[in-house]
């Protein structure tokens, strides 16, 4: 079975995406795994619009409502030992009900903690990171490329992360 990328999207959006002119930058960066997974530290990054309630602001839904073709490019930091009840979701393009009930479907912190306990992977970085996947229409990724992506990269490197699992919204 090959996954259909457009299964949950309208035919109009499918057509638009298929006609989008995206030039793939080659070569694709590639960092081969340097050591066995049981020795690797993992970082988790999602574009699900998660944030740590009471500690950080939600993504800027107010501006997006005012300027619908704009999406907040910033990121949020979530300690992996936080209380799951403190996870908020601010992402106007997904149904967040189930993610609020179980954050693991967007940011699998608890599943990873189990896998670490089993010894399948070495450890989990102390912080996970969340972006909000809607970056405007047409999409403008300059904030991710130029500012916020490099900032999260540096934070992951500071925690000596070897591998990153990214999950989309």
């Amino acid at each position, binding site marked *: 079975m090959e996954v259909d990328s457009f299964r949950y999207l309208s035919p109009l959006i499918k057509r638009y995406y298929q006609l989008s002119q*995206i030039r793939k930058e080659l*070569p694709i960066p590639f960092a081969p*795994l340097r050591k066995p997974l049981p020795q690797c530290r993992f970082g988790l990054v999602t574009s699900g619009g998660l944030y740590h309630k009471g500690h950080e602001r939600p993504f800027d839904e107010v501006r997006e409502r005012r300027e619908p*073709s704009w999406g907040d490019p910033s990121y949020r930091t979530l300690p992996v030992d936080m209380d799951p009840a403190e996870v908020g979701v601010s992402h106007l393009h997904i149904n967040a009900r189930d993610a609020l009930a179980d954050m693991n479907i967007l940011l699998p912190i608890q*599943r990873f903690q189990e896998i670490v306990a089993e010894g399948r992977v070495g450890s989990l970085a102390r912080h996970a990171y969340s972006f909000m996947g809607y970056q405007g229409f047409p999409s403008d990724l300059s904030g991710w490329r130029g500012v916020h992506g490099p900032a999260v990269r540096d934070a992951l490197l500071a925690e000596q992360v070897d591998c990153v699992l*990214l999950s989309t919204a």
Partner: protein
Amino acid sequence: MPVLARIFEAAGMSTVTVTNMPFWSDRVGAPRTLAVEFPFGHILGQAHNPELQRRVILQALAVLEGSACPGAIVHFQEPWPEPLEAARRASHPETPPPIAAHMGRHIGKLLMGMRRGG
């Protein structure tokens, strides 16, 4: 997400992206991808179904271990365990996003421009 994966990978970290849109992984050039045909907002599985979430994660780890060259896209073989209509409802917000009201006009204009541009 493929853009972020590329930034992390270029700094020496090995990445795997789990997504329901492998189309973008291919277009942008994600280093490694596990594609799932799951609704938006549910990329790692159903809420309170840790077994399914775990199977997705373990396969993502296998992609990380097993990819010898950049651009691998592996397709998770389990279908979403609910009927399509229920999955579509789970996928979309109850209130359409602000751009929805403008999207048809935007896309129409953009498609016209693309056609004119050849």
